[in-house]
């Protein structure tokens, strides 16, 4: 325990302080508590013969506006582990970052590679402690000495281990595809295709998911992070840079007027460059 959590020593037992604070805060808002911003996402993961494939769309929304068209939802945790995050973007970003830092410190302290189950336990403990106030629905996938694993951790701290998973606002659409197409011991191409189709279905059926599809393949040999794996057919052709080379605009006439300047005062200050 001392090896894994350096940033914050967890209090012993259950700590419901935040629940009391939240209940008190709720009273101040007169029934209209602010709702956390959801980012609308489709994320999915599949365990295949040689490892794990994770997939995600790349749209981040702020209510009805697309805030980021190329958002990265597959976060690095360890050389052998990546985590897809759905829910509140800030929460997923910070939670996975914290997890990654703690696992690195653990690795350095103990000299061991972290296992996926350890990452899951840390996430579960942390999200449970905050009682759902951290809006992070995560799919954690990785390969370690015990095999290929895929877990989901919910915002309240519930954990489930499955060979295929989907989360986010588009998860039901993606789940339909996964339920139909999943078989144990898939080959890499079939697994990538399955995840891609699942995310694509989520993008088509859910307003909060869209744009491109990122895929991350984790095996014993290493990680292949393909960003983007599939580009949206509705790619926007607007130029974001408006820099034109010299000669684009033809010069019709040229008039040079030299400015008459006279030296009024001259002062020399030597610099000490010793």
């Amino acid at each position, binding site marked *: 325990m001392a090896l894994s959590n350096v940033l914050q020593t967890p209090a012993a037992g*259950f700590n419901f302080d935040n629940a009391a604070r939240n209940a008190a805060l709720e009273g101040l808002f007169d029934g209209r508590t602010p709702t956390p911003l959801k980012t609308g996402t489709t994320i999915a993961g599949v365990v295949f013969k040689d490892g794990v494939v994770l997939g995600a769309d790349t749209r981040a929304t702020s209510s009805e506006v697309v805030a980021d068209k190329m958002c990265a939802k597959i976060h690095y945790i360890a050389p052998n582990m990546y985590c897809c995050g759905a829910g509140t973007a800030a929460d997923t970003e910070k939670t996975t970052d914290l997890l990654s830092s703690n696992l690195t410190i653990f690795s350095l302290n103990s000299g061991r590679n972290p296992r996926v189950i350890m990452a899951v336990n840390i996430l*579960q403990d942390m*999200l*449970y402690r905050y009682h759902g106030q951290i809006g992070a629905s995560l799919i954690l996938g990785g390969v370690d000495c015990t095999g290929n694993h895929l877990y989901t951790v919910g915002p*309240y*701290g*519930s954990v*489930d281990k499955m060979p295929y998973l989907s989360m986010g606002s588009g998860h039901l659409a993606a789940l339909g595809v996964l339920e139909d197409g999943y078989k144990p011991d898939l080959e890499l191409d079939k697994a990538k295709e399955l995840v891609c189709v699942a995310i694509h279905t989520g993008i088509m059926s859910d307003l909060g998911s869209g744009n491109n599809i990122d895929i991350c393949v984790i095996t014993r040999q290493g990680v292949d992070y393909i960003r983007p794996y599939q580009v949206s057919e509705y790619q926007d052709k607007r130029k974001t840079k408006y820099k034109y080379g010299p000669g684009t605009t033809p010069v019709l006439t040229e008039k040079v007027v030299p400015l008459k300047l006279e030296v009024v005062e001259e002062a020399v200050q030597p610099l000490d460059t010793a």
Partner: protein
Amino acid sequence: MEKRSADSRVKGVSTGTTILAATFDGGVVIGSDSRASIGGDFVSSKTINKVIQVHDKIYCCMAGSLADAQAVTKAAKFHLSFHSVQMGTPPLVIAAASVLQELCYKNKDELQAGFITAGWDRKKGPQVYVVSLGGMLIGQPVTIGGSGSTYIYGYVDAKYKPNMSREECLQFATNALALAMGRDNVSGGVAHLVVITEAGAEHVVVPGNKLPKFHNE
């Protein structure tokens, strides 16, 4: 056993569930369904494991909020492990149930989780305890819990006999789970059963299509 009035009060993933445990001659059978739902609207997992091992021959079934139940069983596992190291002997089943009871009672305002603990120890042999939502602890020869248990009180009262054989008890438990899963919408999936005796613990999983079928199915 105490029951929540509506599972929709549980925030996040809930295990609207059917859990049971029964003692037989020489051991105990503990079992559950495998469905987890969110708000009673859709099934979030068809294969969730609700029968958790807290020690070598002591298992727990969970009901209520999945997050709360998993957190409590995790803490209980740690406490029991520590306790058994300190005592130098495997813990008693009552000890496991007491650990759960203390956690449920002390945090009753924030937790929504109930448990059935069953196991075998050298002092009293096979035992079953129920720890309800508020932290009540009662030892019984047979007990059922979860939202699906309402549909099988009659069956259990009529069909349970003390000192059954292992096969009879396993069949009784399977039938009870099948009946409850057939009527309760938030219970379903596969039937997870664990048979605990002096020799150890044995898992039996009955997939949905192999469950016993009754009249009108």
